[in-house]
């Protein structure tokens, strides 16, 4: 269970509060106006921003003292998810062992995950030789390898076209099912939220509201969401 | 610590002499012990009869001695110039030499009981006959050099020869030294830190005249068979410079040090000086100079300020120079 316990986040005069929790296996869309603090919320879970007060807890344990890499979390950023100077296999291998001293079994694992996300045979390529969709798939493949119980998506597919994005969301759903992870996905698009997430967190006016049923939320949007949807 | 271990591994360590052989440590100027200097011949010459191991230790002489003080490893110091003797004496590190100086052939009185000269020369402006047919005939003519004639000199604040030059001018012009510098200033192409930079500028054709020594042409004549470099000799006289040797009072080899000091005044040592040091021997009659040296044109009149006179004038002379050239 991922719990936000009276969390107050503060960055440069901007404040965001959150006080709710997500059950294991939950899939949540995070939606709200630009600059409302969606990425900030994810940063607090990933460990890039310490709360001013309150705690982020995983199964009742405070994540505060843990370094980002030690948290039970995988995060996909908007971009820079891959190191450009490393090959695809190496970028994926980082998910298994950060020092890349992989065993034969782990190398095999990387190969099979590449195959699974449709990148078979591309392990020796560098990111510059890949398309945007392939980069997204590679990043997801690494999430699959890391198999952390929390998966955070900070709009990693925002730059992709509708078809590609749909493909990625299907892949995310598979990854989530495989790993049983809680997924929090920042999105601008109500369709993504409806298609992917059972619940939605609305971030607006300094508050990350408790998750609500996505279909119900969009059927009867509160004022802040109506303003955003226009 | 890692640094020193690493670099000690890289550096060649001075080979140790057999335990029973006494070691005479001689501090010398940097140029002295190179294969082109007099050091190697002096070392083998002395070791041939002293039953000792002569070890040169090179580097800055006076600053190093002053820093080391009583702790110095030196037994003998060779190469101190006349114009730093006052400060060397003041350090109290040197013992009286106790030598009989009657063999000296330097052109000035040498009543010094501490330092023994082993070479000498005079300051002079050197010119190239292929570029200058009518060199100035007097020091005073330096004040009225033709337009476009350039001179390069050394800085009296960083160079012994540069200091000798301002003392030379001071000795000739006294109160008028500032006026001399003001007249010469337009012809001074530049001032360098060391003698060697000036000399390089002169030989590469950048300047017409260079402040150097009356003995400089000897190198070109004897080593290069080049007769075109000459010293302009002036009737006003040329400033005397010598390099000396002194014995450290706290030496643990007083006897060896005395023998070395005595050897400095012998013809065997003195004959090494001209061609290795490109200066004149301090205790060798002209008749015994190596071939060619007796023909070297030398000035008739020698100027020399005593240590106390020089020390008294030094700061003022340098400041006059600086003020005139800063205009």
């Amino acid at each position, binding site marked *: 269970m991922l719990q936000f316990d009276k969390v107050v986040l503060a960055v440069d005069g901007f404040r965001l509060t959150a006080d709710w929790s997500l059950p294991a296996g939950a899939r949540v869309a995070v939606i709200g106006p630009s600059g409302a603090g969606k990425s900030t919320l994810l940063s607090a879970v990933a460990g890039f921003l310490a709360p001013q007060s309150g705690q982020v807890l995983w199964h009742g344990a405070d994540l505060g003292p843990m370094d980002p890499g030690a948290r039970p979390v995988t995060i996909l950023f908007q971009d820079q998810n891959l190191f450009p100077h490393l090959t695809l296999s190496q970028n994926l291998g980082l998910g298994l062992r950060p020092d890349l001293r992989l065993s034969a079994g782990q190398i095999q694992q990387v190969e099979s995950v590449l195959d699974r996300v449709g990148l078979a045979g591309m392990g020796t390529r560098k990111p510059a030789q890949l398309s945007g969709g392939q980069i997204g798939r590679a990043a997801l493949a690494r999430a699959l390898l890391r198999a952390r119980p929390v998966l955070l998506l900070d709009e990693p597919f925002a730059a992709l076209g509708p078809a590609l994005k749909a493909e990625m969301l299907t892949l995310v759903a598979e990854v989530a099912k495989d790993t049983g992870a809680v997924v929090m996905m920042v999105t601008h698009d109500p369709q993504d939220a409806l298609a992917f997430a059972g619940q939605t967190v609305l971030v607006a006016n300094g508050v990350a509201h408790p998750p609500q049923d996505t279909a119900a939320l969009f059927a009867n949007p509160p004022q802040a969401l109506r303003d955003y949807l226009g | 610590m890692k640094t020193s271990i690493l670099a000690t591994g890289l550096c060649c360590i001075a080979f140790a002499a057999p335990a029973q052989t006494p070691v005479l440590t001689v501090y010398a100027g940097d140029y002295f012990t190179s294969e082109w200097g007099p050091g190697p011949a002096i070392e083998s010459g002395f070791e041939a009869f002293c039953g000792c191991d002569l070890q040169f230790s090179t580097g800055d002489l006076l600053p190093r001695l002053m820093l080391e003080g009583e702790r110095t490893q030196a037994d003998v110091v060779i190469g101190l110039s006349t114009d730093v003797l006052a400060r060397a004496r003041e350090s109290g590190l040197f013992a009286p030499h106790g030598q009989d100086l009657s063999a000296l052939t330097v052109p000035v009185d040498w009543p010094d009981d501490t330092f023994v000269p082993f070479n000498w020369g005079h300051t002079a402006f050197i010119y190239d006959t292929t570029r200058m047919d009518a060199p100035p005939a007097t020091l005073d003519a330096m004040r009225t050099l033709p337009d476009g004639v350039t001179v390069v000199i050394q800085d009296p604040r960083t160079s012994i020869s540069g200091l000798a030059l301002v003392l030379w001018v001071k000795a000739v012009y006294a109160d008028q030294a500032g006026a001399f510098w003001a007249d010469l*200033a337009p012809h001074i192409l530049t001032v360098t830190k060391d003698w060697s930079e000036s000399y390089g500028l002169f030989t590469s054709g950048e300047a017409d005249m260079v402040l150097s020594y009356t003995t400089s042409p000897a190198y070109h004549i004897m080593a290069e068979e080049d007769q075109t470099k000459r010293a302009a000799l002036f009737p006003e006289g040329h400033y005397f410079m010598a390099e000396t040797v002194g014995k450290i009072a706290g030496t643990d080899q007083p006897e060896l040090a005395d023998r070395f000091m005595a050897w400095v005044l012998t013809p065997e040592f003195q004959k090494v000086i001209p061609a290795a040091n490109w200066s004149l021997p301090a205790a060798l009659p002209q008749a015994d100079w190596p071939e060619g040296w007796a023909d070297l044109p030398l000035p008739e009149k020698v100027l020399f300020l005593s240590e106390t006179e020089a020390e008294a004038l030094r700061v003022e002379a340098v400041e006059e120079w600086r003020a005139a050239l800063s205009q």
Partner: protein
Amino acid sequence: MARRAVAITAAAVAAWVATLVLLPLAAVLWRAGAWPALAQGDGQALWFTLWQALLSAALSCLLAVPVARALARRQFLGRGALITLMGAPFLLPTIVAVMGLIAVFGRSGLINQGLAGLGLAPLSVYGAPGVILAHVFLNLPLAVRMCLQGWQAIPAERFRLAQSLGFAPAQVSRHLERPMLRAVLPGAFAVIFVLCLTSFAVALTLGGGPKATTVELAIYQAVRFDFDLGRAAMLSGVQVALCALVAAVVWHAVATPGFGAGLGRAPLLRVRGVRLMLADTLAIGGAALFLLLPLAAIGLRGLPGLSDLPPAVWQGASRSVAVALASTALTVPAALILALAVTKSGRGAGLMDAVALLPLASSGLVLGTGLFLLVQPFAAPSTLALPVTVAVNVALSLPFVYRLLVPEARIMQADYGRLSASLDLRGLAWLRLVALPRLARPLGFGAGVSAALSMGDLGVIALFASDQSATLPLVVQRLMAAYRLETAAGAALILVGLSFGLFWAFDTWGRRHAAI
């Protein structure tokens, strides 16, 4: 834990550098026992030192921008070789550099021969313009390389975006180049300013006389001639204070450009138009002529002396190479640790940044004298000549390597800091997989600079030198003192060749391993 280990190591390195610089100064001061007042002419020296350093640094940076931009956006045959060669003046021993400049700009140099051929009056290089000319000659290459690295660090994607938006060169300059220069130029300016601050033989020889007296000359006079240690320490303190001031100003002026990361595609800077083509040709051609002609003159001067070099030259050369390699092996890791710590942690970063500039401002002579005083109670200084040389070389070349690393380390941190943290990539694995490949270019360049600078150093060894430790610069000096000017020029050419060879080897390694 790992982060703390980096911070502790970095603090240790910074403390070591500060100690190496300040302890000798303190030793000299303690020995002198008095803090004297400024002497006659000191005010003038200080003023001249300051304004020539400011002007030299400003001109070097200003001229570097068009040259680096032209090199960044043009492809032509021999471009790589030209970039490497143009770095050479910075690595020249000063006395050799002066001779090269005089061969071109001097009274009987190329330019005046040309003017005479045209019946025009000769130009005199001696005076303040000569000092600045020499300092620009020596330091322009450094500024160009620092800017060029800045250009190469802008991801290709940003230039593509600019092109797709139809940016004119002026807009590219405003949105991409100027922010990058704001990150790079203050550091370059600081290093060059401090370098010119401590210049002295160049300033005196080309300055034409005592008008061009610098503070460093006064220090030299105090140490070597007047034996006035208090005065030397006081003047050295003035230099260190000036350096600290500059470090503080630069620390606040530097901005991280924040271009974001690219995918490592090859930069594609294409510009069209005859005017820009002309401007770039002029910039590259002009810089190449200005920097390479004196180099060629040095080569020509040295060639005749190469025929019969004495064995001492080769012995000195091997000692110098060993010293240079040892210095580099210590300098590069130290600079890397400092740069990484400064970019990562907030606390103490400003102080560490200042420490990394400090050694440049300290006079080599005072450093040498202080170390002599410190070493002397425990060992005969002449037995430690080479270790001391290495230690001082490390201190003196660290600032350059550090300055080269910092801007790119900042970019690396901004672009990949979070990704590395989220993947738990840290410690040695992070160093091997992220830091070293991403910083290979400045590391190689920095190692080359460090090695070449360590070949040329002379100031410190004078007090410690023994026959068994004569490095190549000392051999050159001895040859000159013995009238062997032709042989000395040959040996100097060997020195230049070796320095440049070491620089080239390291730089090439860095460029080859650079993660684009």
